[in-house]
C-alpha cells in the first residue's frame, strides 16, 4: 500500500471498509481499559475525586490541538499537492475537532467549578481553548458558506494554515494578557509532577481518544467522498436532462416544428 494507492478515492473507500471495524474494536477496548483504570485511580490529595475529570479533559484538550494539526497537514496537501483526498480529510476533521474542543471546554469548566466557585474563569489555558473553538466554528461556517467543495477547500486550507501559525501567537498573547491581570493561574495541571497512578490511565485514555478520532475521521471521510460522488452524479444528471430534452421535446410539440428538424 503506497501513497499513490491511497490517492485513489475508490481504493481509499475499500481500505476504509476493511480497516474501520478493527479500529472501532481497538478504540472500544482501549477506552474500556482507560475508563476502568481511571475509575480506580486514587484521589488527589488536593483536588480529591475531581481529578477524575482530568482523565477526560486532558485527552480532549490534546485532541483539540491534534485535530487542528491534522487539518493543517491536510491543508498543505490541498494547497501544495492539490490532492483531492486532502480536501476531504480537512473537511471531515472540522466538526469532529470542534466536538472535542467543546468537550475540553465543558469538562474544563466543570473541573474548575469546585476550585474557582464559578463555571468560567478567564484562565489563560481555557481562554485559548475557547478561541480555538471559535476558530473551529468559523472554519465550519466557511465550509458551509461555499457550495463548490473544491473552491471551499482552498479557502478553508488558507484559513487553517493561518490559524496554525496564529494559534501560538494567540496563546502567547492570552498568557500575557492573563498574567497582566492576575498573578498566577489558578488551575495547576499536574505537568511533570504527575504521579504514575494518574499518568498511566491518562495515557491510555489519551491513546483511546486519539484512536476514537482516527476511527470517526475515517468514517467521516468516507461519507464526504460519497457526498461528493452524489454531487457529481447529480450534476451529470442535470446535464443529461438537457440532453434528453432534445429527444423529448418533439413529443409534445406536434404543432411546433416540422421544419426545424
Amino acid at each position, binding site marked *: 500500500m503506497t501513497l499513490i494507492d491511497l490517492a485513489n478515492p475508490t481504493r481509499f473507500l475499500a481500505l476504509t471498509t476493511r480497516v474501520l471495524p478493527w479500529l472501532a474494536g481497538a478504540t472500544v477496548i482501549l477506552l474500556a481499559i482507560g475508563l476502568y483504570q481511571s475509575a480506580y485511580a486514587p484521589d488527589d490529595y488536593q483536588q480529591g475525586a475531581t481529578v477524575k475529570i482530568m482523565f477526560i479533559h486532558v485527552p480532549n484538550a490534546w485532541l483539540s490541538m491534534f485535530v487542528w494539526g491534522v487539518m493543517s497537514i491536510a491543508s498543505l496537501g490541498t494547497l501544495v499537492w492539490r490532492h483531492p483526498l486532502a480536501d476531504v480529510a480537512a473537511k471531515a476533521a472540522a466538526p469532529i475537532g470542534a466536538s472535542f474542543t467543546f468537550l475540553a471546554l465543558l469538562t474544563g*469548566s466543570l473541573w474548575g467549578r469546585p476550585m474557582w466557585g*464559578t*463555571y*468560567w*474563569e*478567564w484562565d489563560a489555558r481555557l*481562554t485559548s481553548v*475557547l*478561541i480555538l473553538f*471559535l476558530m473551529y*466554528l*468559523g472554519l465550519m*461556517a466557511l465550509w*458551509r*458558506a*461555499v*457550495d463548490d467543495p473544491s473552491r471551499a477547500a482552498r479557502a478553508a486550507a488558507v484559513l487553517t494554515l493561518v490559524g496554525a501559525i496564529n494559534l501560538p501567537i494567540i496563546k502567547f498573547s*492570552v498568557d500575557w*494578557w*492573563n498574567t*497582566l*491581570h*492576575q498573578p498566577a493561574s489558578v488551575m495547576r495541571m499536574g505537568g511533570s509532577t504527575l504521579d504514575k497512578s494518574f499518568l498511566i490511565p491518562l495515557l491510555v485514555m489519551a491513546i483511546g481518544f486519539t484512536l476514537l478520532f482516527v476511527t470517526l475521521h475515517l468514517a467521516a471521510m468516507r461519507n464526504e467522498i460519497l457526498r461528493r460522488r452524489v454531487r457529481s452524479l447529480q450534476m451529470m444528471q442535470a446535464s443529461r436532462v438537457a440532453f434528453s430534452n432534445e429527444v423529448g421535446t418533439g413529443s409534445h410539440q406536434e404543432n411546433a416544428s416540422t421544419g426545424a428538424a
Partner: protein
Amino acid sequence: MTALSALIRRDIRIALRVGGGALIGVLFFLTVVVLMPFAVGPDLALLSRLGPAILWLGALLASLLTLDRLFMADHEDGSLDLITMSRTPLELACAAKALAHWLAAGLPLIVATPVLGLLLNLDMVATSAVALTLLAGTPALTFTGMIGAGLAVTLHRGGLLMAVLVLPLSIPVLIFGVAASQAAIVGPMTFGAPFSILCALSLVSLVVGPFAAAASLRHGLD
C-alpha cells in the same frame, strides 16, 4: 395565508441550507462577546456588571449585520419583482420576510445567551433577565433594521451604510433593553416599567417597519 407561510418557510429553509447565513449571526455574537474581556480585563466582578450591556451590544450588532441581505438577494435574482406584483400586499410580505429572518437569525441569539452569560459570570436571574429582554427586544431590532434593508435595495448599497443608517434608530431599544436587565439584576428601578416600554417599542416597530420597508422597496424598483 398560504402565501405568507410559504414565504416564511422558504426563507428559513434558505437560511439553514448550505450558503445560508442563519448560524453565522450566532457565531458573530459569540465572537464579539468573547472579545470584550480581552479589552476590559478578566475581572469577573467587572464583567458581571457589564454583562447585560455587552450581551445587548453583541446581539444588536449580530442582528443588524445579518440583515443587509434581507431584500438584496431577492432583488438580485428577480424574486422581488414577482413578490411586488403578487396579490399579497407588499407590507405583509415584508413582515413575513422579517419574521422568517428573526426566527432563523434572532432566536438562536437568545438560545446562545445563557452560554454567554456563563462566560460573563452572570447568575441565573441576570441571565434570564437578559434573555427575556432580548426575546422582547430583538423583534424590534429586526423590524427596524428591515427599513435599512429596504433602503439598501433602493440605494444599491448595503453593508456599512445600512448600519450607519439603522444603528441610531435602534438606540431606544438598546436603552430600555439594558435598563430592564439592569433593573432585574441590581435595581433600583422596577423591571416592569422599562420592560413594558421595550415591548411597546417592539410592537410599534412591528407596525412601522413593514410599511416603511415596503414604501422604500416600491420606490426603489426600476
